[in-house]
């Protein structure tokens, strides 16, 4: 395996809505093999859209107008739709935000998990079943027989998320997009799930693009961080370096807006007006430049 080749390489990706508004503004981002890259930003910053673009499930109304996405060196834009589906299906997986809607309510857990092993990797049903049981064991589900026969609504939120994590790692993907995987869970379960993802990531050596708005989660799990504002990467750094010395004023403002256990009653500061004005002009300048170069 070529160590210098990134697992995922996004080069100046831009998307627009039907009304012409740019949602992603020339986003560049790369994830090295076995690396956890966090993607933070507020709601609407485009974090999830980057994940969806990589997985090829953008809504039909969103159009990619610029940029390349390379998955292990293969340019996704140049592949035929069918080949792209197969490649994405074999090398990536998603750990979704809402574990309830991510499982089909009218199908049992078992077939839903083995489905893609059989379909994409062409495994026999028996082999897929063994593999799934192995993964359920890794996510600490002790009664696989019962769980595999359950319908999704018969499991708790935490259990469903474990099932989805197991399913994501089962096909040994190179890259997993984790789209706020702990947001819909309560705090105690969040911690277990986060630890589980980190542990499986280490054991399997999978690269993860970890989308979140929670800086606490970023600090726990990632090696590198991209901070996103209004579809633009405003800062990119090693996690430790970012927390030690945030460079961009928006990053500093985000950190000031995060509650601390040491001083929970300190009032939180909303992002400063001046910072927002600075960001607005930065983005306007970027849009100007983009317009000039794209007619």
């Amino acid at each position: 395996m070529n160590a210098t080749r990134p697992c995922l390489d996004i080069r100046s990706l831009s998307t627009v809505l039907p009304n012409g508004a740019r949602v992603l503004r020339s986003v560049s981002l790369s994830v090295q093999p076995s690396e956890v890259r966090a993607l933070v930003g507020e709601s609407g910053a485009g974090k999830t859209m980057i994940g969806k673009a990589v997985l090829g499930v953008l809504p039909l109304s969103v159009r990619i107008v610029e940029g390349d996405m390379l998955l292990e060196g293969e340019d996704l834009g140049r592949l035929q739709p069918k080949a792209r589906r197969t490649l994405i299906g074999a090398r990536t997986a998603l750990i979704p935000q809402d574990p309830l809607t991510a499982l089909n309510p009218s199908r049992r857990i078992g077939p839903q998990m083995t489905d893609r092993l059989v379909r994409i990797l062409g495994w026999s049903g028996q082999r897929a079943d063994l593999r799934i049981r192995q993964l359920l064991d890794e996510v600490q589900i002790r009664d696989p027989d019962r769980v595999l026969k359950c319908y999704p609504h018969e499991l708790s939120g935490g259990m469903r998320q474990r099932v989805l994590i197991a399913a994501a790692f089962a096909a040994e993907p190179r890259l997993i997009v984790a789209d706020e995987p702990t947001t819909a869970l309560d705090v105690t379960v969040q911690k277990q799930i986060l630890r589980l993802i980190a542990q499986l990531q280490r054991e399997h050596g999978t690269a993860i693009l970890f989308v979140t708005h929670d800086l606490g989660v970023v600090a726990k799990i990632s090696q590198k961080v991209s901070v996103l504002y209004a579809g633009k990467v405003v800062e990119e750094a090693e996690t430790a370096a970012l927390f030690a010395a945030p460079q961009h004023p928006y990053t500093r403002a985000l950190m000031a807006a995060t509650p601390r256990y040491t001083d929970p009653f300190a009032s939180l500061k909303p992002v400063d007006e001046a910072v927002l004005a600075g960001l607005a002009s930065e983005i306007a300048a970027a849009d100007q430049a983009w317009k000039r170069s794209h007619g």
Partner: protein
Amino acid sequence: MDEARNSRSRISRRGSSRHGSGARLWLAGGWLLLALLAAIFAPLVAPQDPLAQDLMFERLPPFWMSGSEPGFWLGTDSLGRDLLSRLIFGARIAFIVAFAAALAACLVGSTLGLISGYFGGWADRIISRIVDVWMAFPPVLFAILLVAVLGTGLSSVIIAIAVIDWTRFCRVIRAESMGQARMDYVENARIAGYGRIGIMLREVLPNVVPSIMALLSLEMGIAVIVEAILSFVNLSISTDDPTWGGIIAEGRLSIHQAWWVLVFPLVTLILTVLSFSQFGEGLKARFDPVLR
């Protein structure tokens, strides 16, 4: 705390719905089964020939009233034909129309609804506009017009009902599959490499089947009514075979002398239609994995 409250309410709802749907399902199913068996074995079950006229026996009252004759349990009409036998033979037409018309409407409507809801875009726009236009026609007048054009007969009645009522399926199934298509599991299936049609059939369809079942049963009831309306205005099947709507029409003429000729077919009709709709609801409550 929240979690506990949720699970408690889920359990109690589950319990009550199971009880409610149980009684409903059995009562409605029982009546339908009875009527269906009577229809299938009509020649064996019916006490008299439904077409045999006997002017000596005209307007006999039902069995508990004075002046009734043994063997004519629900009395006779103004031509002396046995009412019970006519109702039993009328059930044949009613059930044939109910099953055939509802199935045809279901097949067309659900297919278009599924496509429209799942694919969206121009397919949805075209199908939805057609449905809008279709629903602007008053249904009964539309049915009468259709039968007038197609000519009377069993198959025209079935076609007319299917042609009118597919929109009911289309609307509901469109809305349901639209909701399902937005769910994350559909996205997951796409990431896992499934094609759009495969996802529609494997992932979305199973989730709308409970609604299809409930609608199908409801539609059977509606088909029975529409067939009765068409018979009432003499536009259903043209032979002498008795139909519920036809009997009601005859009963209307002699209501002052023989109320039973009007009341018994009406009661039969109402019970059957009610049973169909309740049976559908009960089925849905029982087989929907989320409600269960």
